[in-house]
């Protein structure tokens, strides 16, 4: 096939002669092997998920039990616990800010795309590795730098960034306004710059690999939906992350070099600042130009994984393959023209509000199509409930529940009351947070055998699923009610307002559910690490799946396939084809070998296959 391919094959042959051992450093640290890089991203993602989740437990304690003594947290939080044993109200904001940043960017962007795009793209399209292994390695290490900086910022004297994960200026620009906007914010910005670089390096690689390194026969119309999702996600990222970079850069200028991009007519701490002519709204436009596509960067890979898992375990083709691709593309396109629905009440021109309401509600159509297609895929299936399958079903359920509330928020007139309340918190935690998180878990359960050559324990998987699934609904569903009642988000406590004196019990309930749900994740973490070493040995194709990764050895080495890369003859969803002896026909099986199950037009293809074979010989 391509040039890159040939060189790798030569390299392999050469390996055979010398059998040189890779050093620990080049195998596990500065590796260029996409599978190892994927695992690196996965482990970092798990690390960050524990941190991000842990932060949320601290602030849930505050919200659920405002009178609780938190003295016992002093060993970790130090001076952020006040004299009276309470959480500091400024640190509360730092906690929500870092929770959001970590979850959205470090877990659900880097952890999700980083793991599965890296792992699955070469394996499923039939490539030996990424187009550029070196860039791939660079992408991971940029992420490590970003992670280290962000992590250290948690511990500095003035605290980490505290202006919300969207870091709107002027709050984020003025250390006078909040301590977190001092060094903590600087570190946030620097970390994000590295993060963006990492995303771009990764994204370019994913795109190039998908376009150039597909094995013979793997046309775009035969790509698994996972790959379609990763591919489009990478395109979205490539187009939107640079805009976040621009926004961050201008913010750096405003903070450090006296410019006035976002600052105007500010009087703070007894001082009138010289800045005039800037616009805080400009920042919001730039931020959400990334921010909205970002939510799809998070959800599309999860949807891709879910498509694959649901189809495999329903033993049925995914319903409406073409419509699924179409809706991914429609969502990708529309995601760039809806950003200002986050800004209906910022004072933006109401006419723009009308336009963005219109465009926003359109995006619900392709989203709905996806949901309907998943449900129809289950219809008349022969469903196997592996843990991965359960997580996928849960994912679809969350996606529906959370997606529907988008129709309230996208309606600018209704959003007047709902904006920045707990209703929004409920919306995005279900549709993005939980759905993407479940997609990620489904992926881990499904591809763990390919990653580590062993199986995860099913029983623990089920317990993990049920505790998480029920737990997440118990945490986030009640927030709708609290939001409709008008409770604002990012509030340290609700005691100052009569209007918010209610729902104390419900908040306590939510906090308890959150703690249990968080605790349940440790079952998974145990399962994960235990099974890496002691799990049951996996067979080559444990789920009887059609995609190419299951044609590699149980523990694929460098270059993935020991011999030639298989050629692809069919789409990845030939499950339960009438006439076929098995209920699955992998992609590398030619039509000429399956005369009993070929459809009309496939018979033609089978003949062509025969003919080209003869030609080759």
């Amino acid at each position, binding site marked *: 096939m391509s040039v890159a391919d040939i060189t790798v094959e030569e390299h392999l042959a050469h390996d055979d002669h010398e059998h040189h051992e890779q050093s620990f450093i080049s195998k596990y640290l500065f590796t260029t092997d996409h599978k190892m890089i994927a695992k690196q991203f996965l482990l970092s993602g798990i690390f960050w998920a524990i941190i991000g989740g842990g932060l949320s437990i601290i602030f849930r304690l505050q919200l659920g039990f405002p009178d609780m003594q938190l003295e016992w947290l002093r060993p970790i939080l130090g001076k952020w616990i006040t004299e009276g044993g309470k959480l500091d109200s400024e640190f509360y904001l730092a906690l929500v800010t870092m929770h959001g940043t970590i979850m959205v960017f470090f877990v659900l962007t880097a952890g999700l795309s980083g793991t599965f795009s890296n792992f699955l793209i070469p394996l499923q399209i039939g490539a030996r590795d990424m187009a550029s292994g070196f860039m791939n390695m660079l992408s991971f290490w940029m992420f490590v730098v970003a992670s280290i900086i962000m992590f250290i910022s948690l511990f500095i004297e003035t605290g980490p960034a505290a202006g919300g994960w969207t870091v709107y200026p002027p709050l984020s620009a003025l250390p006078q306004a909040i301590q977190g906007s001092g060094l903590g914010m600087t570190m946030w910005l620097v970390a994000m710059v590295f993060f963006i670089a990492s995303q771009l390096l990764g994204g370019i690689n994913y795109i190039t690999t998908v376009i150039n390194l597909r094995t013979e026969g793997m046309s775009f119309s035969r790509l698994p939906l996972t790959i379609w999702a990763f591919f489009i996600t990478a395109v979205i990222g490539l187009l939107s992350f640079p805009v976040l970079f621009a926004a961050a850069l201008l913010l750096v200028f405003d903070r450090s070099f006296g410019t006035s991009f976002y600052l*105007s007519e500010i009087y703070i701490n007894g001082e009138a600042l010289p800045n005039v002519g800037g*616009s805080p709204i400009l920042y919001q436009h730039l931020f959400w130009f990334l921010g909205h596509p970002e939510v799809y960067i998070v959800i599309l890979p999860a949807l891709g994984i879910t498509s694959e898992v649901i189809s495999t375990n329903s033993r049925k083709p995914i319903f*409406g393959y073409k419509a699924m691709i179409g809706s991914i593309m429609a969502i990708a396109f529309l995601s760039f023209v809806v950003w200002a629905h986050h800004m209906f009440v910022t004072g933006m021109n109401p006419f723009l509000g009308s336009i963005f309401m219109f465009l926003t509600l359109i995006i619900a159509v392709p989203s709905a199509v996806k949901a309907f297609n998943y449900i*129809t895929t289950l219809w008349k299936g022969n469903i196997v409930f592996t843990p991965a399958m359960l997580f996928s079903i849960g994912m679809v359920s969350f996606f529906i529940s959370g997606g529907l509330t988008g129709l309230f928020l996208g309606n600018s007139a209704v959003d007047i009351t709902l904006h920045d309340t707990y209703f929004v918190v409920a919306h995005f935690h279900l549709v993005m947070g939980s759905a993407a998180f479940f997609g990620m878990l489904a992926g881990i359960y499904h591809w763990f055998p390919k990653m580590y050559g062993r199986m995860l324990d099913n029983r623990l998987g089920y317990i993990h699923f049920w505790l998480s699934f029920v737990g997440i609904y118990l945490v986030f569903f009640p927030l709708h009610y609290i939001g409709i009642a008008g409770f604002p988000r990012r509030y340290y406590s609700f005691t100052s*307002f009569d209007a918010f004196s209610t729902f104390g019990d419900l908040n306590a309930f939510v906090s308890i559910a959150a703690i249990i749900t968080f605790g349940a994740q440790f079952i998974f973490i145990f399962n994960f690490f235990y099974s890496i070493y002691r799990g049951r040995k996996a067979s080559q194709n444990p789920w009887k799946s059609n995609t190419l990764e299951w044609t590699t050895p149980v523990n694929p080495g460098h270059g993935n396939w020991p011999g030639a890369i298989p050629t692809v003859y069919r789409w990845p969803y030939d499950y339960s084809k009438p006439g076929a002896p098995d209920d699955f026909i992998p992609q590398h099986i030619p039509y000429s070998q399956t005369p009993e199950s070929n459809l009309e037009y496939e018979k033609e293809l089978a003949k062509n296959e025969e003919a080209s074979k003869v030609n080759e010989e």
Partner: protein
Amino acid sequence: MTYLVIGLAVLLVLAILYATFRVATLVGIVKGEGSKNVPSSNKLQASLLVVFLILGLFGFFYYSFGGLDESFVNPIASEHGVATDRLFWITMGLTGFVFVVTQIFLFGFAYKYQFKENGQAHFYPHNDNLEKIWTIVPAIVLAVLIFSGWRTWVDITSSAPEDSEKIEIMGYQYSWAVRYGGNDKKLGDYDYQKIDVVNQSGIDFSDKASFDDFIPTRLYLPKGRPVLLQIRARDVIHSVYQPHFRLQMNAVPGMPTRFWFTPTKTTEEMRVETGNPEFDYELVCNKICGKGHFAMKYMIEVLEPEEYDKWYAEASQNPWLKQNSDYLAHVPEELQELARISSGIDSEEDIESIDNTIASINY
């Protein structure tokens, strides 16, 4: 000591859990679970999904229709609130229906089509008509939502009626300051450079409309009359939010914003309606603005129009300039006389007596 005991207890529990897990695993191996096609609990999982569906839907309906201790729907106290709430409930009806139906199908199909030993899935890759239907139907429904939402939105954001009460409201860390136009019902200019400890709003006294402006300690509103809030912020972004009025607009430094609406219930009436004699409208800050964000409250009082007029006339007797008459010095020479007259400062003596004593009112 207690920590040690707790630590040991936790360790013990973990050890027991681990032992249980090991035993279960070994039993599983003996039973040969790993080699089966399908997880041995396949049926159980399918049933649990249905149990979850039923319990979940029950909980959803129970809590949505009064199962909660508190009501989660705030009584509406503005004209446009009626329209936005209607839209809200229409959307709720539609999405609620879709929510219930799709979840039933999702879990129901999962249960119904669970693995059966000799079962065969139906090879059903696509059906163009079905797909067209569920593209077009949502599109039409959404078009209706968009259209009605758009009309309401345009009404709400249209320019305020000529005769509306114009009130300035300024957010700062961590409270609000409101300003009324005084006798001439015109708000004077402001300039952020003129802000100081006393002149918190930065009133610009080179504008003669500012002489009679007054700054009360509450936001008073007339029932039944359109009110135009002229919103700004002094330091960071805040947001003027009032759930009962279904009112929200950000307060942005350097970019004045506005929101107009008509209150429909006085504070007294709301006390009766809510059965809470202590009820007060509260102005809430709803954009993260720093340490005190959660306590950035300001009281609102809605009065009958006559009461409001009476209050207004009284308050106009006491313009800010009169209370802080040394700010006369900021008034340009040629306007001094006018400033005295419109703010009601009679003579030089007054200045001494009143002076700065009331500065604290403006907190």
